[in-house]
């Protein structure tokens, strides 16, 4: 049962992601990506990690994608059919194809090396307590390092996004 649901969810996520990257209309792409993230959240739930599933929905579907949508709506990015002649075909599709091939190769390798873990059955059920203890005691240092990195990134983004002094004077 869990295996069947897992495969259905997996295919949903794949199809949604595929549709997401092929849509011309950015809002449609966002909707498909939300679908894909939702399917991923369900897969996490299926694999015995309810906390990660909830975070996937709250943070990715609920906050990050909403910000994407916000920007798209603010900039009024209308569907633009005139993009065809921007360069030779392989320039547009090449990098994506390469990345996709690498990912597929990695997945195939993983399945060949470790075929047993593709069962779609929770091997370990992580309750919120277990997850919290693991995160803040065993991996406390890693969590701190990552959070500092995020903090630096936020400060960096603020610094880079700040208009230079000369321009600010002109604006004022």
């Amino acid at each position, binding site marked *: 049962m869990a295996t069947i649901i897992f495969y259905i969810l997996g295919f949903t996520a794949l199809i949604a992601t595929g549709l997401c990257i092929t849509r011309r209309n950015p809002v449609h792409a966002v909707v498909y990506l939300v679908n894909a993230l939702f399917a991923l959240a369900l897969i996490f739930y299926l694999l015995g990690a309810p906390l990660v599933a*909830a975070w996937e*929905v*709250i943070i990715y579907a609920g906050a990050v994608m*909403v910000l994407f*949508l*916000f920007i798209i*709506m*603010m900039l009024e990015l209308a569907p633009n059919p005139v993009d065809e002649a921007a360069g030779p075909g392989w320039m547009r599709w090449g990098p994506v194809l390469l990345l996709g091939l690498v990912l597929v190769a990695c997945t195939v390798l993983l399945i060949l090396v470790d075929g047993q873990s593709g069962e779609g059955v929770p091997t370990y059920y992580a309750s919120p307590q277990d997850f919290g203890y693991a995160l803040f005691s065993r991996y406390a240092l890693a969590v701190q390092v990552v959070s500092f990195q995020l903090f630096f990134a936020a400060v960096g983004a603020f610094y880079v996004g700040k208009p230079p002094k000369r321009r600010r004077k002109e604006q004022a």
Partner: protein
Amino acid sequence: MSDFAIDILLILVKLGLIFAVLLTGAAYLVLAERRVLGRIQRRYGPNRVGPFGMMQPLADAVKLLTKEDFIPAQADKPIFFVAPGLAAVTALLAFAVVPFSPPITLFGREVPMVVCDLNIGVLYFLGLSSLAVYGIALGGWASNSKYALLGGIRGLAQLISYELAMGLSLVPVVLMAGSFSLTDIVLAQNPVPFALLNPVAFLVFLISTAAESKRIPFDIPEAENELVAGFHTEYSGMRFGLFFVGEYINMMILGSMITVFFLGGWIGPVLPPIVWFFAKVMAVAFVFIWMRGTLPRLRYDQLMHFGWKFLIPVSLINVIVTGALLLWLKG
């Protein structure tokens, strides 16, 4: 019947009951709001249809169902169709984790009075309330109208901002209860509700839920005299009805959440638990209606400043202080 079949049947019965109570509750909340607002403004409000106007919600439903369902020519049809449903469904789904009474014993079986007591109930509620944004944003965008688009953008910005304060004000609750499960949170408030133990979190949560429900004084996504009707300008008939009912269902959900998180849920003396629960939810809904009747609308920049520069810092400090106090009390 096997145990499994009985369990499924029980869940279906509970779902049916909750749907019935929520939908009639939402319909009569509309009537209550119109009556109370009328009284606040020294007029009677609707009192023609049936005794005391009690049949007004039915008349409204008939009107909405028989009206023309208008679709703008340039609208993005699939999204335009789905958006009102999204707004209503995300509100309805949140009720799955709300415990409205302690478990009761029926025919020798213990029946928990909650559809699904998730061990991540708080996060489930937060997740759904963050998904509720899509109904507004996509509805506003798909209408292909400037008013609706502006309403959608404002709605997005407002809901993201106040969601942060809402989530942060729940952290002290989770800290004090030591659990993400709503049943455990209610049980942890047995002698003293969290509203008295942590009034700061309570006030922040109350204000941010008022903002989440997009009602006056936080109704800039649909500000009538600026944006016609904001994100649902182009909607008519039952699609508009779904947005409208969704708002009132949302009000009941947020009322139940305030009840569960801060007012001690079903706990109370003398009266049966379910009556206490319902009374508390109605009291919160009345406060929302009261606020709508007395307060003017905030300006957009005032709203953003209040959210980001006041509510979020206050709730962050509250998290730190509560955490430190709990650690100190533990020794």
